[in-house]
């Protein structure tokens, strides 16, 4: 009956998506967890920023020279809350400051101005009072360095102006002006390699991460879909319905794909919020990804989609083959968990390294793992290296056919009913 497969897929998706455990762990958790994590990081970052903005400092000016006075003025010009304290022994000064909210004490010792004007180094003593172990306390302690380096640069500029009255001090300080050009995908780009490296980093982390999430959740869903039939004792009834065993397998694969896709979409939305939250404080780059060639062509999209499709089918079939040997969902999850390594290992390694740069033995191991080729295909997609993509698709497809054949064999025999995994050693 042609509608039978449709009925089976609808049932699979409905039954799993209504399961509170699956709904919570696969869809609601990533949808809520990532934004909450992002919001928490964003909140702590803004707390740090706020803390550094409201930092109050004290200055003890033992030296009364002009440079000491200029230093104090430069602090005030930067709107830094600065309280001048009378010279006193350091222990007494710190004791007094601990009663207040002041976190930094700057001491300008005697001879500061004289040393600098005579070409020696002027000494500043800075005492930071840390009231707790936190990022914001550390940040408060380092705030003082900013006005000091600004004033230091002013002093250097003044010295240069005196020594070379006909030169621009900025040119003396930075005599070389570097202009960056990058040739990428045969195109000349007027951007710095550092900027491109940042974008490459986000791509090389992003795609393997998404692939990892998608494949691992697909495996867990497929394992659940078959083991729940065993746990709830519905499998025997299903297998005696007038529908081919291959259709039952296809229904399970398609139903799991729908649920895994919903889970992956939830993860992506969640991660998007997470990334948006944690990078909200960073200055945005005005670089146009399409302009620098970091976009996917329609053919690359198509091939990448095909790669993901066959990879997901193989992951689902692989998980089903193994979960058949379980008697309940928990056992299935345990049996399938080691499979995650096949996905995590290439994803994690290729996040940081190019496969060609790895030792040959590791390269061989990685090339044998089918899920390596998904990551390779995703990288090749940006380089429009279609030959690599086609090679990856061929390898994953061959692996998928093999696994589907094994899954079909299991479903065609009584193993699907009788198979049990025994932890006990055979005697």
């Amino acid at each position, binding site marked *: *009956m042609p*509608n*039978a497969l449709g*009925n089976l897929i609808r*049932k699979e998706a*409905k*039954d*799993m998506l*209504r*399961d509170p455990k699956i709904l919570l762990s696969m869809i609601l958790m990533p949808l809520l967890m990532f934004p909450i994590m992002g919001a928490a990081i964003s909140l702590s970052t803004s707390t740090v920023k706020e803390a550094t903005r409201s930092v109050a400092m004290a200055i003890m000016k033992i030296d009364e020279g002009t440079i000491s006075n200029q230093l104090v003025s430069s602090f005030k010009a930067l709107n830094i809350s600065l309280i001048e304290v009378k010279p006193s022994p350091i222990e007494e000064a710190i004791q007094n400051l601990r009663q207040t909210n002041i976190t930094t004490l700057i001491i300008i010792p005697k001879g500061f101005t004289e040393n600098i004007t005579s070409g020696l180094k002027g000494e500043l003593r800075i005492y930071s009072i840390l009231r707790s172990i936190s990022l914001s306390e550390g940040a408060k302690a380092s705030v003082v360095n900013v006005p000091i380096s600004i004033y230091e640069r002013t002093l250097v500029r003044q010295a240069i102006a005196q020594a070379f009255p006909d030169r621009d001090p900025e040119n003396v300080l930075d005599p070389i002006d570097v202009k960056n050009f990058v040739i990428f995908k045969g195109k000349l780009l007027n951007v710095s390699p550092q900027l491109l490296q940042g974008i490459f980093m986000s791509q090389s982390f992003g795609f393997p991460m998404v692939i990892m999430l998608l494949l691992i959740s697909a495996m867990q869903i497929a394992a659940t879909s078959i083991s729940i039939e065993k746990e*709830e*004792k*519905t499998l*025997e*009834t299903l*297998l*005696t*319905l*007038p*529908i*081919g065993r291959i259709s039952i397998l296809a229904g399970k694969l398609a139903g799991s794909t729908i649920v895994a896709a919903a889970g992956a979409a939830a993860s992506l939305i969640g991660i998007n919020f997470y990334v948006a939250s944690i990078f909200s404080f960073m200055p945005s780059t005005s670089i146009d990804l399409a302009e620098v060639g970091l976009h996917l062509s329609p053919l690359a999209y198509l091939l990448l989609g095909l790669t993901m499709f066959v990879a997901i089918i193989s992951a689902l079939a692989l998980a089903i083959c193994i979960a058949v040997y379980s008697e309940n969902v928990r056992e299935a999850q345990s049996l399938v968990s080691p499979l995650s390594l096949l996905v995590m290992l290439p994803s994690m390694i290729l996040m940081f390294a190019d496969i060609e740069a790895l030792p040959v033995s590791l390269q061989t191991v990685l090339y044998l793992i089918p899920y390596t080729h998904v990551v390779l295909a995703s990288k090749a997609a940006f380089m429009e290296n279609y030959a690599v993509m086609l090679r990856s698709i061929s390898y994953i497809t061959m692996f998928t056919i093999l696994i589907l054949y094994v899954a079909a064999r299991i479903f065609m*025999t*009584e193993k699907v*009913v*009788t198979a049990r995994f025994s932890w006990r050693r055979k005697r």
Partner: protein
Amino acid sequence: MEKAIEVINLHKYFGKVKALNGLSFTVDPGEIYGLIGPNGAGKTTALRILATLIRPTSGSARIFGLDVEREANKVRRIIGYLPEEAGAYRNLSGTEYLEFIASFYFRNKREIKDAVYEAEEISGLGERLRDKIKTYSKGMIRRLLVARTLMIKPKLAILDEPTSGIDIIHAYHIRRVIKNYAKDYKVTVLLSSHNMFEVEFLCTRIAFINKGRILVEGSPEEIKTRYGARDLEEAFMEVARSA
């Protein structure tokens, strides 16, 4: 006349364990045939082979002339199987579950609706069919499963402990439904049960089975007379002693 069930010299091994040891019996169309015997006698194994779930190691089994191994797909179209330990999809409502099962047997919505209506009558679950199955008691699930087995009006209903877990009132109702179905729709029934009263009430013929083979076969009356027993329980004990 074509037999509803024809089992010839069936053997089944699970590793070194011999579950069936030359089991043979036949059932005529419209009969209610009962397999009784102690735990591990091979009753469920025999039913699972006939339901196309597992394959015999040797021997043959045919249902209305169809070989359960070679023509399994055709066999599945004419049977309804109720396993001893069975569940239903917890996150579907009773009605959704019945519609799901019916959709494999009927082509149009009218037929599916009629089958679901039939199942409502058999189960007696009424409005509760709209609730999710996870809210059902064990007995309610069993009633739902009996209903889904019979609503499709199979040529052969294979029922493993049909009233297990059902209270007295509903078990009474289910037994009557099975009996009437067999009569009204000429459904052949093969059942296994530990409930001797149930077997005596329902079955036209029974077989005592132990260690994978039949020890005694006949109508309940014949068997009781043969062993001079007041009821089947006594006869069963007698057979077990002399085996």
